[in-house]
C-alpha cells in the first residue's frame, strides 16, 4: 500500500527525521494561505502515488501567495501523468505547500528487500536529486549498497560507513547517521517494502532534511498495521483494481479485450502468454487465489464483466484448493447477476472438474469448453 508524500513525512517527523515545514492544501485558496503563512514563497507539490513528479510538472516553486493559488488551481482536480503512471495519469486531490530549502548537497537514500540477500538493504548515493536509475546504469560506483542483517538491524558502524561513502563533512555526518537509523526503524516497524528519500539534503547550516518521501507498506503485513490502513487513498488506484484488492483478488487492468480469470499467479501469467501468442490481447491479469468460495469467484467475474473493454471471457482453473464446482457456481452467479451473454471459454482441470462442467453446461451461459491451453487459445481467437 502506497502512502502520499505528506503522509510519509508525518511518519518521518514522528521518528525524528527532519522535514521541511509544510501545509497540506486541498483548494487553491488554502494553497494561497499556506504560502502566506510560510513567508510568501514556497514549493507546491502535487500529492499523487507516482514517482517522476518533478519531470512530469507536478512540483513548482512559487514566489507569491497569488502564484501558489494559480499553480494549485492548475493542479487540483486534474490528473498528473509521469513516466511511472499510465497515459491517463493519477488524480491530484491535494497539494503539499512547503517552505523553500537551502540546499548545499543532495543525496539519495532508500531501503528495500533484496531477494538475493534475503533481507533488507540500504541503498545510498551522493548523486541525489537526479534520475537514480540512470546513475545506477551509467555510474554504478556512485551507488553504495549496505546489506542489513534482519536480526541485528542497522549497526552503528554500518550507518557510519554509509555516511562516509556519501562523502559527508564532519558537521552533518552525525545527524545524517541518526537519520539513517530512524529510516531503518521506519522500514521495519511499519513493515515497508520501500522507503525512499530523493533528495535527502544537507542545508547551508548543515542540517539533514528529507525533501521528498516515498513509503510503500507491504500488503501482507497489514493485519498488524490497522493505523496505516486508514491512510489508504483509493482515488489513486484503478477503480477495478481497488475493488479487487478489497476482496483480496490479485487484479491488474490491461489494454486488451479478453477478460481472464485464473487461479494462481504463475498459471495466470502463463495464460496471458498463451493468449498473446494466439494473437489476442488480455484485458486483465486476475488471480482469484486458492481459498476462494463461490461468492469470491462471482466477485472476480463481476469485476471482469464490469470492464467495458471485455468482449469475451477466458476461465482457466486448475482445481486444487479451489474446487472446479465452486468456481463454476461462482461464474454462473456472476453472469446471471450481471445479465451478461458474452462468449465464455472455460478450461477446467483437477478437483471436481466433472461437477464443474456439469454446472456450467446446465446453465444458460454461452460457454465453450476447452481441454488444453492450445484449445483454449484457439477458442478465444474464434470468439472474437
Amino acid at each position, binding site marked *: 500500500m502506497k502512502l502520499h508524500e505528506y503522509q510519509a513525512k508525518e511518519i518521518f517527523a514522528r521518528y525524528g527525521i527532519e522535514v521541511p515545514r509544510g501545509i497540506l492544501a486541498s483548494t487553491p485558496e488554502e494553497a494561497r494561505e499556506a504560502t502566506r503563512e510560510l513567508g510568501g514563497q514556497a514549493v507546491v507539490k502535487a500529492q499523487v502515488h507516482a514517482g517522476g513528479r518533478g519531470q512530469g510538472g507536478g512540483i513548482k516553486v512559487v514566489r507569491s501567495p497569488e502564484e501558489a493559488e494559480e499553480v494549485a488551481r492548475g493542479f487540483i482536480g486534474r490528473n498528473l501523468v509521469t513516466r511511472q503512471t499510465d497515459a491517463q495519469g493519477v488524480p491530484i486531490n491535494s497539494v503539499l505547500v512547503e517552505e523553500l530549502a537551502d540546499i548545499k548537497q543532495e543525496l539519495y537514500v532508500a531501503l528495500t528487500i533484496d531477494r538475493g540477500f534475503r533481507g533488507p538493504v540500504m541503498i545510498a548515493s551522493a548523486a541525489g536529486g537526479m534520475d*537514480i536509475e540512470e546513475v545506477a546504469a551509467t555510474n554504478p560506483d556512485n551507488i553504495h549498497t549496505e546489506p542489513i*542483517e534482519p536480526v541485528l538491524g542497522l549497526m552503528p558502524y554500518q550507518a557510519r560507513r554509509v555516511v562516509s561513502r556519501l562523502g559527508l563533512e564532519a558537521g552533518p555526518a552525525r545527524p545524517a547517521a541518526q537519520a539513517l537509523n530512524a529510516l531503518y526503524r521506519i522500514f521495519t516497524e511499519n513493515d515497508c517494502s520501500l522507503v525512499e528519500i530523493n533528495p535527502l539534503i544537507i542545508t547551508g547550516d548543515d542540517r539533514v532534511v528529507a525533501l521528498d518521501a516515498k513509503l510503500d507498506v507491504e500488503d501482507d503485513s497489514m493485519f*498488524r498495521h490497522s493505523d496505516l490502513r486508514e491512510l489508504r487513498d483509493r482515488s489513486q488506484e484503478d477503480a477495478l483494481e481497488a475493488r479487487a484488492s478489497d476482496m483480496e483478488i490479485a487484479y491488474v487492468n490491461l489494454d486488451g479485450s479478453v477478460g481472464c480469470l485464473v487461479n494462481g499467479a504463475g498459471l495466470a501469467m502463463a495464460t496471458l502468454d498463451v493468449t498473446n501468442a494466439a494473437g489476442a490481447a488480455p484485458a486483465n491479469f486476475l488471480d482469484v487465489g*486458492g481459498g476462494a468460495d463461490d461468492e469470491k469467484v462471482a466477485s472476480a467475474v463481476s469485476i471482469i464483466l464490469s470492464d467495458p473493454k471485455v468482449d469475451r471471457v477466458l476461465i482457466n482453473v486448475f482445481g*486444487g484448493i479451489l474446487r472446479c464446482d465452486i468456481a463454476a457456481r461462482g461464474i454462473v452467479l456472476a453472469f446471471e447477476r450481471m445479465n451478461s451473454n458474452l462468449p465464455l471459454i472455460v478450461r477446467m482441470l483437477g478437483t471436481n472438474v466433472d461437477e464443474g462442467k456439469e454446472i456450467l453446461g446446465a446453465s444458460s451461459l454461452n460457454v465453450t469448453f476447452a481441454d488444453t491451453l492450445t484449445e483454449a487459445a484457439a477458442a478465444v481467437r474464434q470468439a472474437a
Partner: protein
Amino acid sequence: MGILLDEHSRILVQGITGREGSFHARAGMAYGTNVVAGVTPGRGGQMFEETVPVFNSVEEAVAETGANVSLIFVPPPFAPDAIVEAADAGVPLIACITEGVPVQDMAKVARYLEPRPDVRLIGPNCPGMINPGAHCKVGIMPGNIHMPGRVGVVSRSGTLTYEAVGQLTNLGIGQSSCVGIGGDPIIGTSFAEILRLYNEDTDTDLIVFIGEIGGTMEQEAAAYIKESVTKPVCTLIVGATAPPGKRMGHAGAIITGDSARAEAKIAAMRDAGAHIIPTPADIGATAQAVLADMG
C-alpha cells in the same frame, strides 16, 4: 526414488484441525501418504479422522510418532512461529503452504535456518511436493494428475506446476517428484538446490524447470545448470507478456536492473544449454521430444 520424500516419510500436519489443514491432510491420506500426527496448540489429545493423534506441540508430536516431515497450514501471522517450532524440534523437512507471510518475518526465519543445514524449508506460499512412486503427497496438489516416472518437475508456482504435470501425464510421461518452491520474495529452498537434488537422484532422467519473471533466482539456477547439471533440462519462463508492475520509487530496479525480465532469464537458460519450452502449452511436447532424443 525421487527427491525429498520416500516410503519412510512420516508426515506431521501443523494446523490439522483448521479448514485447509484438515481438507488436505485427508486428501494426502487418501493418496496413500503416511500422516502420523497433527499439531494444533490447545487441541492435544484429540484424534483426527480417528487414526491420527493431535498434539499441542511439534516437540511432543515428533517424540511420540517419529514424524520427519512437517506440512504447515497455519494462518500468516502464526506461520513464522510454526516454521521455527518445527525446525527447533529437529524436523528435517518442512513445507509451508501458507500464503501471505510478511516478508520481513521471513527474512528473520531465513537467518534462523541458515546455520541449520539439516533442516530444509520448502515455501512459504507454495503447493508443496509429491513423490508419485512412493504415494507420498505433502501439499495441496491434486494427486490424481500425477503418475510415477522419471521426470523431475520444479516450479515457483502452484497451479502452473499442475499444468506442467497434467501435460506430462497426458503424454504418458511420469514424474519422479514434483516440487513447488513458492512464489514469495524470500523462500526456504532455491531452484538451484532442487536442481542439485534432481541431478543426484538416480531415478530422474530429465528435469522440467518452470521459472517466472521477477528476482534473479532463474539466473542462479542457469549458472548451476551450466556448471554442474549433467541431465537435460527443459525450461519455461512465464510472464514475458505480463505488464511491468505499477511501481513507485527506484530501489527495486537498482537491485535487479533488467535481469528480472523474462528475456534475460530465457537468455541465461539458453546459454546454460537448457531446452527452451516456447509457450506454456508446449511443456509436455518439449519434454517428450527431448526424451525421444535420449532414446
